[in-house]
């Protein structure tokens, strides 16, 4: 099991180091950092980035995740399961975040005593103990010192629309923080986050599409009351008898929301799920994922991308890219960035944005031979076009299309989800009348791998 847990900055400074067994050498943190930093450098001539999350060096096994600009690293000498250890250090990071409100190098440095106290409680002799934030409250005595100036404002909150920004900021408060000025604010956040992966072929035909969704919750309800979450009634899980939730429910025609698979947090009570698609739970403190789901069934991709390439003259080619936002006009896409690699023979690319299109920028990166087209905002239903003139160093580039692309698009659409999964209602059970805490239900769709091939 785990011999040591270390938290490192991306520069390699050891911020936290907790030894659970005295069986690894002293310099493991350095060894780890050197390995990760120069991974593949000797053999493949490239470095960094690609170190697998689990590797062995001199008899010590290193497990790591990278989050919030930090490495969380565990070391072990035995055949300790990486699935368990990676999940565990991920949880360690999450618990620290729950306690301190946010997670950053600064936060950990400021709260190092608390972090040590947490590490002692979360892991004993390398074995994961109870990691629920709720449970830990009775065993942790240090109080978190929140860092007031949280990174760049809007950076963490920006995935949600401006009107809920205050709510997003609220989620970065500590779960154990004492209410300020005696004002208690009971609230609960439910975020339905969907990550969309889509691949179009050159003619715009959908090759693969998938949604990885999750329902995240963060509860600040005092007294931890039971709540009930109701999802779409027409929800069906598993198209065949594969899924234990398949049941007969929703099979009688009119099924409109099909999931391939889903799983739940251990606090979820599912006795009514088959009957009416409701989940009852006692939300633990802190952030947790109530449900993960996944579907490869058809859905309407939020963006369509068209490209056309033509070699108009020797040494010159012309590229046209069109993007159409296929979601309701009331919604907006933000942080939309389109990237496309151009042929190696390209020496210059001049971009011309269509008339009347504002809030857009283009960039030609010569070193990577890539163009980037960024939008401040895209409203649903709108069309955008970009014309790019390519100057080539060769008279003709054979297979010019082969050397280009694929087009990749990254975006965030707030208050919209492609699967149409909804939280029909969120009911707080067993509470006296008049108790009406804030219930924030937010939807967001993000790109995971959104690709159009040329």
């Amino acid at each position, binding site marked *: 099991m785990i011999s040591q847990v270390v938290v490192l900055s991306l520069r390699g400074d050891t911020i936290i180091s907790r030894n659970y067994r005295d069986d690894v050498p002293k310099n493991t943190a350095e060894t780890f950092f050197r390995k990760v930093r120069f991974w593949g450098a000797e053999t493949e001539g490239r470095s960094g980035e690609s170190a697998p999350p689990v590797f062995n060096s001199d008899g010590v096994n290193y497990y790591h995740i990278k989050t919030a600009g930090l490495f969380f690293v565990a070391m072990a000498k035995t055949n300790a*399961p990486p699935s368990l250890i990676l999940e565990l250090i991920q949880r360690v990071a999450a618990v620290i975040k729950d306690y301190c409100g946010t997670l950053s190098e600064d936060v950990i440095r400021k709260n190092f005593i608390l972090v*040590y106290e947490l590490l002692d409680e979360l892991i004993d002799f390398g074995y994961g103990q109870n990691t629920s934030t709720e449970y830990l409250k009775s065993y942790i005595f240090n109080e978190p010192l929140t860092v007031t100036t949280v990174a760049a404002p809007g950076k963490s909150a920006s995935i949600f629309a401006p009107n809920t920004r205050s709510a997003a900021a609220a989620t970065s408060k500590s779960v154990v923080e004492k209410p300020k000025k005696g004002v208690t604010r009971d609230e609960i956040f439910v975020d339905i986050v969907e990550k969309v992966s889509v691949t179009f072929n050159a003619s715009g035909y959908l090759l693969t599409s998938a949604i990885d969704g999750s329902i995240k919750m963060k509860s600040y309800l005092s007294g931890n009351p039971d709540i009930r979450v109701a999802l779409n009634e027409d929800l069906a899980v598993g198209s065949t008898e594969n899924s234990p939730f398949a049941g007969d429910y929703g099979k009688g025609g009119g099924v409109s929301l099909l999931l391939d698979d889903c799983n739940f947090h251990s606090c979820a009570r599912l006795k009514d799920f088959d009957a009416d698609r409701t989940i009852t739970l006692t939300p633990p403190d802190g952030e947790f994922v109530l449900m993960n789901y996944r579907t490869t069934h058809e859905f309407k991709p939020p963006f369509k991308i068209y490209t056309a390439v033509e070699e108009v003259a020797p040494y010159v080619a012309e590229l046209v890219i069109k993007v159409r936002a296929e979601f309701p006009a009331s919604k907006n896409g933000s942080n939309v960035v389109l990237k496309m690699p151009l042929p190696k023979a390209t020496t210059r690319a001049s971009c011309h944005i269509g008339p009347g299109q504002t809030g857009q920028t283009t960039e030609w990166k010569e070193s990577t031979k890539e163009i980037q087209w960024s939008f401040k905002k895209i409203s649903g239903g709108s069309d955008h076009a970009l014309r790019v003139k390519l100057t080539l160093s060769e008279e003709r580039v054979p297979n010019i299309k082969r050397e280009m692309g694929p087009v990749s698009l990254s975006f965030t659409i707030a208050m919209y989800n492609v699967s149409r999964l909804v939280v029909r209602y969120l009911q707080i059970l067993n509470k006296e009348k008049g108790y009406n805490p804030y219930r924030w239900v937010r939807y967001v769709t993000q790109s995971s791998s959104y690709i159009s091939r040329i």
Partner: protein
Amino acid sequence: MSDGKFFTTTKKGEIADLKEELHSLDKAKKKDAVKKVIAAMTVGKDVSMLFPDVVNCTQTDNLEMKKLVYLYLINYAKTQPDIAIMAVNTFVKDSQDPNPLIRALAVRTMGCIRVDKITEYLCDPLQKCLKDDDPYVRKTSAICVAKLFDISPEIVEDRGFLDNLKDMLSDSNPMVVANAVAALAEIQDNSTKPVFQITSHTLYKLMAALNECTEWGQVFILDSLVKYEARDARDAESIVERVTPRLQHANCAVVLSSVKVILAQMDVITNTELIRTLCKKMAPPLVTLLSAEPEIQYVALRNINLIIQKWQNILTNDIKVFFCKYNDPVYVKTEKLEIMIKLASERNIDQVLLEFKEYATEVDVDFVRKAVRAIGRCAIALERSAEACINVLLELIQTKVNYVVQEAICVIKDIFRRYPNTYETIIATLCENLDTLDEPEAKAAMIWIIGEYAERIDNADELLETFLETFLDESTLVQLQLLTATVKLFLKRPTEGPQQMIQMVLNQATQETDNPDLRDRAYIYWRLLSTDPEAAKDVVLAEKPTISDDSNQLDADLLHELLQNIGTLASVYHKPPDAFVSRARVAVTRGEDLEEDPLGSGEEGEASDMADPTVAAAAPPAAETPAPAVAAVTDLMGDLMAPAAPSALAPVPAAAPAADPLGDLLGLDVSAAPAPVPMPVAAADPFALMDQSQPAAAQPKPILLDASKAQGLEIRGVLAREGGVVFWDLDFSNQSQSQLSGFQVQFNSNAFGFTPKPNGLADLVVPPGGSASAKLHMMPGGAPATALTNMLQVAIKNAQQPVWYFTPTIAVEQCFTEEGLLDRDAFLGMWKSLPDVNERTQMFPAANVPSVDTFTLKMRAHNVYFMAQRPVPGTNQIVTYWSSKLPQAVLLLEMTLQVGVPGVKCCIKSANPDYAPLAFMAVEKLLASATN
């Protein structure tokens, strides 16, 4: 105010200040001081001198403070065991505190302090806490037993803690059960005795706890269930039934451990319908793991790779989910490729090929190459889809992207191997790209194709010729392929052009390169071609066995073992746990065994590892790692040396079928100089002036192997003869840091057929900085080399160093045997029977024999026997006759000389006159010694 400020105190006198603050009466100030100490500790500063002051703070009711002090204690107790004992009372007191948190904290901390004296005091509190009313204290105590076992297994046994743990499996609190399982499993791992065996009774209890405990506890329990052997199919079915709901857990580790348990029970379950259902149930959760963070995805993919090797149909319908995403990290993409290849079938190959083709245009060169390889591997695995694969490869070749073309050619070669004589029509396309090839592997592949299909490629000779122009500049891989391809061409088309090419290639390969593999292969071909071209055809053009794609395919036993280890590191590394877990431990060992601690005392190990008897009793881990390296060297040695001496001790590798012929091969080119020696030659001719009558005892023997060239190993030596045996009298001196032993020695074939006595140097041990002597007997009777020189190529190795080569000269005068003594009639008969062609003559103008009698004695000492003497009429000269024998030839000598006057003419007659030149060398030396 924040804890961060504690990091900022770096002023001088800091320690003194801290000391003062630690003794402050103000509790807040005291706490701050401890925090400062911990901060200093974290950044690596040594604050151990504050130990007594910090220990002083243990007497507090404040839990926060207590935790801080204990954190410090854990860190420094090792270095200050005597003061640490001061804290014992507090621990013992705390373990009886009314507050369960404090009781648990005391037990947890004591277990972390690996100091013998503290451990002694731990047992009683632990015993109590194991039966504590509070589950938090019990679950902490359960883990503490594992800690104690790590420090002292015998205490755990003697005090019966194992039974306590087993009782805990029935605890009402699931967290306690889970920790007891974890502790027992760890103890079992490190013990040879059966400690933790799940019976049907405990099984029931574990199953009950499984549904209640934390996700980590679920993993501990599930992992322990894997080892449970179900009594029958029904038993297995009931386990599976209870575990299946766990597949729905959001935690990847729980899912994988559940899959592991289910797969293990599937071996027992007989109901095929149920197995089918289980396969279907496992698929969606496995796929869902791919929605997690990339780190988890990687672990999941490595495991899925294993699972589908046994249960391929689990995921065949889900191949699409393994298509690479644009933003997947490389390590995820690579694993997905691997799985796509394994799941590819005739049904989905079109889709898969489309993907691969797309990947082959991506930016990451390494990934592109892997994608191209993947197409080839699909072609090899799926016979009916091979053509489709080849078409995609051809399309890729048309892109003319250099590395794509080269990779494609490499895989097409494999496809040709797999489906001989099926797809040669595409060779023309391949040939168009000849000039773009600049990577050795691609070149070698193309050359192989040309050679293999030489009869179908009209201009095969021209193509090869272009490569041959740069033969000497090519890498070995290409050279070897060129050599073979040219031979194939020649055998298929024995016309003038190819003949010239083969001549050139063989000459260059044997004479102008210094790669022994290449040279040897060229010699073999040469010999084959010159003795029996038909045999050469049988060898070179033989039908090759069909290949299959076995890359990344595991053998059944290993796969079985890995499937039992799903979720663990072994499943990610695809290696059995023994291969990377070095802490192999043995059962409880008693104190007396510790006396024989084979490890000696380590530096930092003293306090921790050495206090741990299990480590001491285990096989020293250090010895494990070098072992393969030694084996590898031995193999290398075998490869290098076996040809010369099949009887030698070095393992004869399969790769040396040329064992016997090598002797001939070295002399194949009869007129040529001695075979080139690849390694630097250490000594030139150390024996030239040596003579047995001038024993070298007083002066050091000539250097054979120079210490500066052999990592500090120096070998000096002379060849001597005693009691009818020829031997090297060798002095070894070792200027390196390590002891040298396990010497092995080999000779290349030589004129006298000498081989070293097997294990002749086996007992030799040369201490670091010391020296040792040995006599290495030269055993006659080996096949002599055809090129007769007095050079001896020697390879010597030991267990610590690589192989060293040196080439001393053989002092021929030591090699005459006692059997050289003939009676006069035999001599006369032989002399007369030998025709003039068997006669060689040499003049030694400087030689001067002062006295025939002394000379006769000298000659006799070297087994050259005086036969007769007659005066030459009309002169002062005399003619002397001598008989002698080298191991391979009887030599009759006639020397004409005048006593006291320089100038000796020597004439040698022998049935084997090739040895005459060697004998002349001996005669010259013997004459020279007579002159003095």
